[in-house]
């Protein structure tokens, strides 16, 4: 039943393995990266993959999924799931475009309103789940339909294009920033936003009392409650954060593509879940990290990028990504229980 830990031999021998499992997505990322370097096509003696522009394109390509995946990590850490994030992203992108173009609001009010919508949507789902005890899968499945419906009603079923300028019906030029690059035209703004969100989440998940409560709920909800963890409040907050980040991803989406699409973001929730799983977070909750998720999202991004650079058929890409997900989940099954 119980294993005593005071066997020094056993301790020393098992030091490498836990490290490998704990940072599985990081090891995976390094592996995929090395493979990408080896298989990268050449141009003028240069490796196309290692071109700094290309590398930041990789980060940009995963920025929306990455932002969603950070929120999804929190949700999965408490042992729940949020299927609504893709639809909330769509709703937020429509909201952004509509408020900028149709209502002529400034950038700051638009961002505040759209983030508040995402936050409120997430909090309401959290209340349904934590206070009324309905399963997260069901609540967020319904939330997905509702957000999608709202997006279509708000947009009238059509994508809302964003043009920039000072005239009525045009968005402030400041908003076009999202389509640009900074640091000497090197780092795309969406990538920067993702990096900031991820860094904040990594740090907060290490040092905040809130994160201790999140892990405890995922590890053993009953024990957490009896230990005085405000389980209901923490759960509601986690869904609120997830909704907020989905709205942020929606704003980035609208800014990057210059329109708000009511049908956009469909299936993004599954890509986000995939990044979390590849990142080594346990779907039963209590184990995992945002750092893993970031590595997981990057791993998928690098893989897609190198396959695209080698002109591999898009359908084959799907197969490869699918196999990687199964492999990551399989590794989790092998993971010894002692690795947290």
């Amino acid at each position, binding site marked *: 039943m*119980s294993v*005593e830990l005071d066997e020094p031999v056993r301790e020393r021998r098992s030091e490498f393995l836990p490290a490998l499992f704990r940072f599985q997505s990081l090891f995976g990322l390094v592996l995929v990266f090395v493979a990408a370097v080896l298989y990268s096509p050449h141009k003028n003696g240069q490796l196309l993959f290692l071109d700094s522009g290309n590398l930041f394109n990789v980060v940009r390509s995963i920025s929306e999924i990455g932002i969603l995946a950070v929120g999804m990590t929190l949700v999965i850490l408490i042992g729940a799931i949020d299927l609504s994030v893709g639809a909330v992203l769509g709703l937020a992108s429509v909201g952004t475009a509509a408020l900028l173009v149709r209502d002529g609001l400034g950038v700051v009010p638009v961002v505040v309103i759209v983030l508040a919508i995402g936050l409120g949507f997430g909090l309401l789902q959290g209340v349904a789940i934590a206070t009324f005890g309905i399963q997260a899968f069901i609540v967020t499945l319904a939330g997905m339909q509702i957000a999608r419906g709202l997006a279509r009603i708000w947009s009238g079923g059509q994508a809302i294009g964003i043009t920039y300028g000072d005239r009525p019906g045009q968005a402030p030029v400041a908003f076009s920033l999202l389509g640009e690059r900074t640091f000497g035209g090197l780092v795309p703004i969406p990538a920067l936003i993702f990096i900031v969100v991820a860094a904040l989440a990594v740090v907060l998940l290490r040092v905040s009392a809130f994160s201790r409560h999140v892990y405890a709920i995922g*590890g053993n909800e009953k024990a957490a409650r009896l230990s005085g963890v405000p389980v209901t409040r923490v759960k509601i907050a986690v869904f609120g954060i997830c909704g907020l980040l989905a709205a942020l991803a929606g704003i980035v989406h609208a800014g990057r593509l210059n329109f708000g699409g009511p049908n956009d973001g469909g299936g993004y929730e599954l890509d986000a879940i995939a990044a979390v799983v590849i990142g080594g977070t346990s779907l039963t909750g209590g184990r995992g990290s945002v750092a893993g998720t970031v590595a997981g999202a990057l791993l998928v991004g690098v893989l897609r990028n190198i396959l695209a650079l080698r002109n591999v058929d898009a359908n084959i890409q799907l197969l490869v990504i699918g196999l990687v997900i199964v492999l990551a989940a399989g590794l989790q099954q092998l993971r010894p229980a002692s690795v947290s």
Partner: protein
Amino acid sequence: MSETAVPLVEMIGVSKSFGGVRAVAGADFTVREGEVHALLGENGAGKSTLMKVLSGEVGGYRGEIRIGGEPVRFTSPADAQRAGVAMIHQELDLVPALSVAENVFLGREPKTAFGTVDRRRVVTETAALLERTGVTLDPRRPVEHLRTGEQQLVTIVKALSLDARILVMDEPTSALSVHEVERLFTVIGGLRRAGAGIVYISHRMEEIGRVADRATVLRNGRVVAEFDARAMTAAQASEAMVGRPVHLMFRGTGTATGEELLRVENLAVRRPRPGLRDPAGVTLSVAEGEIVGLAGLLGSGRTELLETLFGVGAKGPWQGRVLLRGSRIRPRGPRHALKLGIAFVPEDRRIAGLALEHSVLANTVLSIVDRIARLGLVSRRAERNAARETTERLGVKLASLSGPVGSLSGGNQQKVVLGRNLLTEPRLLLLDEPTRGVDVGAKAEIYRLLGEAAARGLGVLLASSEPAELVGVCHRVVVLRDGRGMHELNTAEVSEADLLAASMGEGAVPGLTVGGA
């Protein structure tokens, strides 16, 4: 009784060890036709193991079993069932969504000519079985809509449909209402008249006197006494079960206790459909520095009383009142209770106490992370220091604070739960079976820690099903039955046997005072 007839079951010199531990040591046990044979003993006395050997669930035993005079050696429960032996477990093995009839014929449904399940026959045959057993139930009703007692009857009918002649019932009344118990006894009476042999495991002395013919007492895996069940007294039986002079495992926290800390007056929880075990009129008090025990059988409401005091009990209006240091309280939940200075060590640490995969550190400081945090941020050093100090003070044996708590031994796990609660600096500590599944050494250490905590002025309310523990550790013991406080005993004046007898409802015990004042 006709001694000449061949008994239905003969177990001769049966021994069974798990690892190095002898669970059953050379036990003889017989069941005759038309007999109800009660099997008694403390937890861990070997009752369940002996019966699992008989029902084929446990193999690798020494000794001999004969069914109707024929030597047998079962290798699986199915094997035993073919020989007519069926065991009815405390946890009922039924599929909730299926009907009574479907459950009875699960896995051996009669087929029609087309190979589909002959639903009509399933229902009519179940109806016939129910009628023969004297049970009035609609065979088409889903099992999940039945009450626990009715579900129990379904498992009995299922066993009978397998032509069982020997039924082993493991604490069949532990979750039944008085009315349901009566119904079960009627059914048992019918089975006895039909010539079945029944083994009846129970802690409730008054039931055994009513339903059983003979009673065998096991202690440490050995048969130590056999009684005529109708003539046996609870005092006799508990003496045989405990079997040794009372051991003072721990005594000497000093009798000097401080001011009254907790006062519970006629506490009862009312809800639309009252559960059997909700507090239904409990009065007790705990002084600073005092350890008060809560005794009572399974289902007497000990756990529910503690949960109510911690704010996690049944929802519903309270009757009576609870005072903590003179002011009236009603905890809304664990967080509120902890704020009031009430801490709780739950019954099953693996289910309700610990996140087993998480580190010792995380589990130890969980209750105070938001207290040691500044602006919501936790200093890793503060966290580690608090955990190290606590685990050292409690003598938790561990390789590393970052190792998973699930890899510690049961006793050390329990110390982590205790340490987490003590870190909240409570005034009142509620403990539910704190030494279950803990080895003797760790047990003694936990008693020592409780004594130390009490010496610092903490009030302790300790629920336990071990009479030795209650007598040895507590200053006073309150005995609960059916959610009510029945007696209050001064442990300096009573023995374990007295306590057991009081739990079972035999009133005439020296040193007893009827509680409720």
